């Protein structure tokens, strides 16, 4: 089987409903980057809830795709800086990295990580200007993990990664923090929001921020970077999900519900040609 982020939604529901019976027959052939990041977030929740069905399911997948173990350890911080990379003649095409606190984002190693992403884009046919803009959008999204971390401790459990192929790229950022709805409730202007779907719409489309009106430009950077490109965006938080499809001109927004999962998980995929199909790892 191949897994994308929507499959992870279904799997989470099946675990919740105890609909998974025979794990032995499951064979994982390929998985998308955003599915990997969402799956490790699920594992986090299953671990906390001591949900053995969920944990066994994760283990089954990870035995077939050991990369999942690396990303899991990055999310939990068990192996500090357990970077994993798939490189092509020295240029990194696939890499993930954990975010434990604000310092991770501002240290030089993080700049190097982002720079590898930018250089991979250029090597894969993206113009230097576009690569710069996409790397900037990636930074803003990872910065959000630190910005939306627990207010008192300033700690976060997040992971970010990119996957670049010829004229195609995706990046994904996931955390198991408070989620968008709770975060926006810090700001009195957004306390009227009652569900995660509306909170996602406010954050992504109206640039709502947990701070005053002078913040909230992270998603603006994403829209700016992706303007005019073939792009697919997925934002998931709490029980809300937002799919944005820019394949045919203006971006179409499709809000919906997704089985409950803490934190925020997002992915942005774009291509220079017409083939936006998600690539498997």
């Amino acid at each position, binding site marked *: 089987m191949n897994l994308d982020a929507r499959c992870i939604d279904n799997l989470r529901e099946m675990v919740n409903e105890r609909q998974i019976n025979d794990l032995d027959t499951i064979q994982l052939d390929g998985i998308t980057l955003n599915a990997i990041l969402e799956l490790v977030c699920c594992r986090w929740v299953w671990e906390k809830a001591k949900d053995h069905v969920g944990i066994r399911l994760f283990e089954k997948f990870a035995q077939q795709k050991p990369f999942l173990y690396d990303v899991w350890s990055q999310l939990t911080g068990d192996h500090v800086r357990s970077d994993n990379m798939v490189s092509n003649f020295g240029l990194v095409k696939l890499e993930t990295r954990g975010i434990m606190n*604000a310092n991770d*984002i*501002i240290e030089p190693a993080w*700049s190097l990580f982002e720079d590898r992403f930018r250089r991979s884009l250029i090597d894969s046919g993206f113009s230097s200007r576009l690569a710069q803009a996409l790397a900037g959008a990636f930074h803003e999204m990872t*910065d959000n993990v630190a910005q939306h971390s627990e207010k008192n401790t300033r700690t976060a459990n997040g992971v970010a990664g990119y996957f670049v192929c010829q004229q195609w790229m995706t990046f994904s950022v996931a955390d198991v923090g408070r989620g968008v709805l709770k975060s926006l409730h*810090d*700001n009195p202007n957004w306390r009227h929001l009652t569900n995660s779907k509306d909170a996602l719409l406010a954050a992504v489309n109206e640039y709502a921020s947990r701070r*005053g009106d002078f*913040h909230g430009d992270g998603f603006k950077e994403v829209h700016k970077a992706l303007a005019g490109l073939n792009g697919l965006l997925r934002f998931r938080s709490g029980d809300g999900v937002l799919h944005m499809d820019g394949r045919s001109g203006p971006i179409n927004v499709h809000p919906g519900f997704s089985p409950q999962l803490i934190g925020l998980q997002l992915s942005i995929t774009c291509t220079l040609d017409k083939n936006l199909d998600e690539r498997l790892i």
Partner: protein
Amino acid sequence: MLIIEILRQHKRNQVLGATLGEALISNARPQLLQSSPPSADQIVILDFLGIKDTNSSYLKATFVWLLLCGELSASEQTMTRGLADDADEGDPFKPIPLNVFPLVAHLSRNVSQELDELLNGRKLPCLEAITWTKDRVISARLHGYLDEPLSRTFSNLIESGSGTATQLQAQYPEMITPNAWSNRLLELYRLRLIQRHKESREWIYQPVAKELING
């Protein structure tokens, strides 16, 4: 005067994101806290020398944060509603009243574009220091937005060097009351473009920079 050299602080020529901006402010916090009212005015220059790129999140966490702190300090003195009134109470980076007058310096083309876009979107002005001594900005360039009457008042004050509302009204006749002159000067003070001190019963205003360079 406090000069914050961004390149020296971050050791990189591209400065992005709110988190990095907050780190810069955190490092400068002890010096900035010395400007807690009622301390003397403190000019703070964010020196972008060697910085190739930035983004609005970084600029908001640094320059705009300082501007909000300065504005809060001015509002405390004048009891007007401030720009930062809707900020979150539990936020460690919530603006606090600081008697600061923030400027930027050595803007690259990209940094200047990013700053202008941010300021125009928010209708805020900012001075880019061009030359300065250890305690005074000699010349500066105005970025961002300043409406026509305020812009005229600012130019008038720069031309005069300093003055009270009454003196400016006498020197530059306009069909407005001394009270209107006073309000404009107060607004420029709130936007941290001009400083002021009291002599007998009148406020004497002077621009943060002695000269304004056009373009």
